[in-house]
């Protein structure tokens, strides 16, 4: 069952990405159910995953649109506010998913970094390093290594980026200024730390007024319980998310 389950989800992922590119495709949980999935036992987790897939897609799109600042495209204040609110909504949802598993209340102020559960670890994907070399406004990330098994993939847009931005655009006049003020680390502070606790990775955030956009792509909190199937699935999902994120960073 494990192998079958993994295969289906992987191919669904590929299907999803293939669908996205050419034309307007429908990605709704109802649609996903019709995508040739016959195992009724998997229906529930499948619709969960498609919801999560959509969430991840929307998340990455959000980041992509917000990153258009680098290209010099001015985003209207209305659009950037709507994008940020969508990001917040997704983050809230991720947070809620996380709190269900942890059985303790999540501090909305984002003090999870100080929580015992959280290890001081962060991961910056190699994409960041590559992206940094290409873009002079990004300085290299702190973390030198990127184990694939890490649950958390965080995108660290360094302080120099918002500084460059705010030098060019004043706060009063521009959505970009608004975004550079916006401490997104508050939003994304409660990263779901992975089940793999490696202590040799330094903390990446908590550095004050950074503008890190840390995103947790941990799709299924239930996998934190020691289900090996979930672990493997999540790892494979993370792999794909990692590629996706790297793609975004390198492209930008």
């Amino acid at each position, binding site marked *: 069952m494990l192998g079958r389950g993994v295969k289906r989800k992987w191919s669904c992922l590929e299907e999803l990405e293939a669908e*996205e590119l050419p*034309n*307007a*495709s*429908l*990605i*709704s949980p109802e*649609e996903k159910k019709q995508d040739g999935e016959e195992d009724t036992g998997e229906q529930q987790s499948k619709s969960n995953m498609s919801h999560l897939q*959509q*969430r991840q*897609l*929307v998340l990455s*799109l959000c980041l992509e*649109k917000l990153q258009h600042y680098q290209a010099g495209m*001015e985003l*209207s*204040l*209305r*659009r950037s*506010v*709507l994008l*940020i*609110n*969508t990001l917040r*909504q*997704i983050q809230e949802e991720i947070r809620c998913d996380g709190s269900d598993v942890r059985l303790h209340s999540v501090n909305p102020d984002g003090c999870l970094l100080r929580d015992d559960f959280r290890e001081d670890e962060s991961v910056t994907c190699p994409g960041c390093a590559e992206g940094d070399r290409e873009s002079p406004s990004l300085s290299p990330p702190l973390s030198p290594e990127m184990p694939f098994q890490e649950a958390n993939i965080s995108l660290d847009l360094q302080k120099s980026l918002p500084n460059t931005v705010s030098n*060019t*655009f*004043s*706060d*009063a*006049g*521009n959505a970009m*200024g*608004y975004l550079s*003020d*916006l*401490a997104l680390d*508050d939003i994304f502070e409660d990263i779901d730390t992975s089940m793999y606790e490696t202590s040799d990775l330094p903390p990446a955030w908590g550095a004050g007024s950074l503008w890190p956009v840390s995103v947790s792509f941990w799709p299924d909190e239930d996998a934190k319980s020691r289900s090996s199937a979930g672990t493997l699935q999540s790892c494979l999902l993370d792999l794909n998310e990692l590629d996706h994120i790297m793609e975004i960073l390198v492209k930008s």
Partner: protein
Amino acid sequence: MNVREKKERQSGEPCMIWDATLESLAWKSRGWEQVCRYQDLEPADSSMEEENETRKINNSFLRDHNYATEADIISTVEFNSTGELLATGDKGGRVVVFQREQESKTQPHRRGEYNVYSTFQSHEPEFDYLKSLEIEEKINKIKWLPQQNAAYFLLSTNDKTVKLWKISERDKRPEGYNLKDEDGRFRDPSTITTLRVPVLQPMDLMVEATARRVFSNAHTYHINSISVNSDLQTFISTDDLRVNLWNLEITDRSFNIVDIKPANMEELTEVITSAEFHPQQCHTFAYTSSKGCIRLCDMRQAALCDRHCKYFEEPEDPSTRSFFSEIISSISDVKFSHNGRYLMTRDYLTVKVWDLQMENKPLETYQVHDYLRGKLCSLYENDCIFDKFECVWNGSDSVIMTGSYNNFFRMFDRNTKRDVTLEASRENSKPRAILKPRKVCVGGKRRKDEISVDSLDFSKKILHTTWHPHENIIAVAATNNLYIFQDKVN
């Protein structure tokens, strides 16, 4: 080819069947016919040719070129208060004003056609050196002032500056100067032996537009709407975070009456999307937000109208909640009804009519293109979900109209609850053509004339429409084309 001939070929026969008792459009019988279509293009040359009549027509505007630039995209359309004039603004900062052809007994079918009356460059692109940002010259909104003398006045605005334009006709000029001869050259005073009084002689009609006021430097953010007060002395201009009140005579100061900018910009979650004055009550205005709520304010309560009098919001339906709920609830346009009892709002998928006395839910909700609900993710991806559609009432407040994709626009009859989808397209516009109702097929079998959701062209969107204040004449802007349709009795 004579310009007039071309227009005759394009216009159709006047069509009958207007149900005057119901004041509603009878869909079964003949419906909307195309009066004329104008293509907004860069003129090949700016010279204006004379016609037989005392009217100048910009031929280059009517000529059917094959090229169109992005500057030609029409960004706003507006009838004036009598319907005699129709103004359009485009992305290149140009305003083109059309005037209705006068009724003529010899050519009765020509009534209802609009000819180019005046063209002028309203706004130029600017550069904000402080922020290193270009200020687009695109005309966001045009609002007419009611006519008080022989000249016409309109307000036009781009992202930052509002301008008051005066459009006036000149059909006489003084002749018989003493010191100048007819060519304008100065005469040698020693050769003048007699004095004469210059007299006004008729000349070819000339329409000139002059900027009478420039209202600038009052908006940090982008202006999305302007609205003239019923007192005809003041107007408001609205950007993402503020509403400013101006006096039409005073350009060096304005009053800020709404300010939703938070002290800490990090806390910003909502922006103002549009605002309008009440059509009769000069102290009342409404503004809408990106979260889908409407606030009605009374300027008599306080100088700063931060506290609303009425707050209109429909509670969210939890069953339809998605990641895009907030984005699609963002209101893109607000319009008071002519009678002042209702207001109408447009969000991404619906048009809602609100009773000013009922704040907790709309009176009526009309689905514009609900078949897009399942495509929201893709529309989010290609940014179409951020498109801002406008909506408009007819003169009697019985029919409302708004645009959609694929050059479709929709009309809803509030009394009969019937609706129709029409298309503004070149392919379908034949001489004497009556618009055929269109239908989008959602699933299953597609009938012959239907179009499937996946075949819709999302680059062809009708964002701007306007309705004649008294008659059933509408103007629809489809990218760089302006369509004028009418539905009238013989």
